[in-house]
């Protein structure tokens, strides 16, 4: 989807996020931390800033849900689709949904939440999938160590073409 003025993007650099529900697979603080670090992947290379909110509506709202969860794009149980997220925009725009039927983890077993969240937030910011294997926005999940994760050049170039570079 592209508008006549280019791909959808946020017209502001200060964005808010809210975690509406949690997975029981991980302690809440680990989920909070994975989400925060996943957003940092993008804020580290652009002028974008993310602030967590608890009460009011946020630009990026995050849920864990199973099957049909109210957006017309039901999840499919364990395996297959892990998560999805909406392009920037009002209402559901920017929101990220994670399939609760997956087993979420902070390590290499099961599905690493940080890696999937970082990918989904790429969609929340306006990126589509990349056909470059190894790119974060490649659609197929593959594990890499979150401790040594660095945003691949393809993703960096694409996000910076939307929002510019982080000023030093």
């Amino acid at each position, binding site marked *: 989807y592209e508008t006549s003025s280019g791909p959808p993007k946020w017209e502001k650099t200060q964005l808010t996020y809210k975690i509406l529900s949690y997975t029981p697979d991980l302690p809440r603080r680990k989920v909070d931390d994975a989400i925060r670090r996943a957003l940092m992947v993008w804020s580290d290379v652009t002028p974008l800033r993310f602030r967590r909110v608890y009460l009011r509506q946020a630009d990026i709202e995050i849920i864990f849900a199973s099957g049909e969860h109210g957006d017309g794009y039901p999840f499919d149980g364990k395996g297959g*689709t892990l*998560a999805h997220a909406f392009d920037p925009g009002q209402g559901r725009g920017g929101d990220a949904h994670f399939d609760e039927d997956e087993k979420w983890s902070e390590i290499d077993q099961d599905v690493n939440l940080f890696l999937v969240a970082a990918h989904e937030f790429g969609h929340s910011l306006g990126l589509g999938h990349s056909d470059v294997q190894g790119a974060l926005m490649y659609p197929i999940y593959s594990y890499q160590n979150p401790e040594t994760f660095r945003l691949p050049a393809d993703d960096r170039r694409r996000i910076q073409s939307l929002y510019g570079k982080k000023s030093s």
Partner: protein
Amino acid sequence: FPLQVRPQPWSSLDPEKVKGYLDKFFPTFTKAQNLSIEERIKKMQKFFHLTVTGKLDTETEKILTMPRCGMPDVSE
């Protein structure tokens, strides 16, 4: 009597599942809705830099069963 040749199943995967995958991740534009499954598989193989055959070979099947993001790979 000659043996009756049975058509080979084109894949071990359920054809409905394959179609479902293509509909979800490689949706067709209104004008191109008459694209054959073979053409749509080619489109998918091109995206994943696989050998473009239009057939569900082993490497294509492997991609179909891998865990992934739920967003389409090509724009609607």
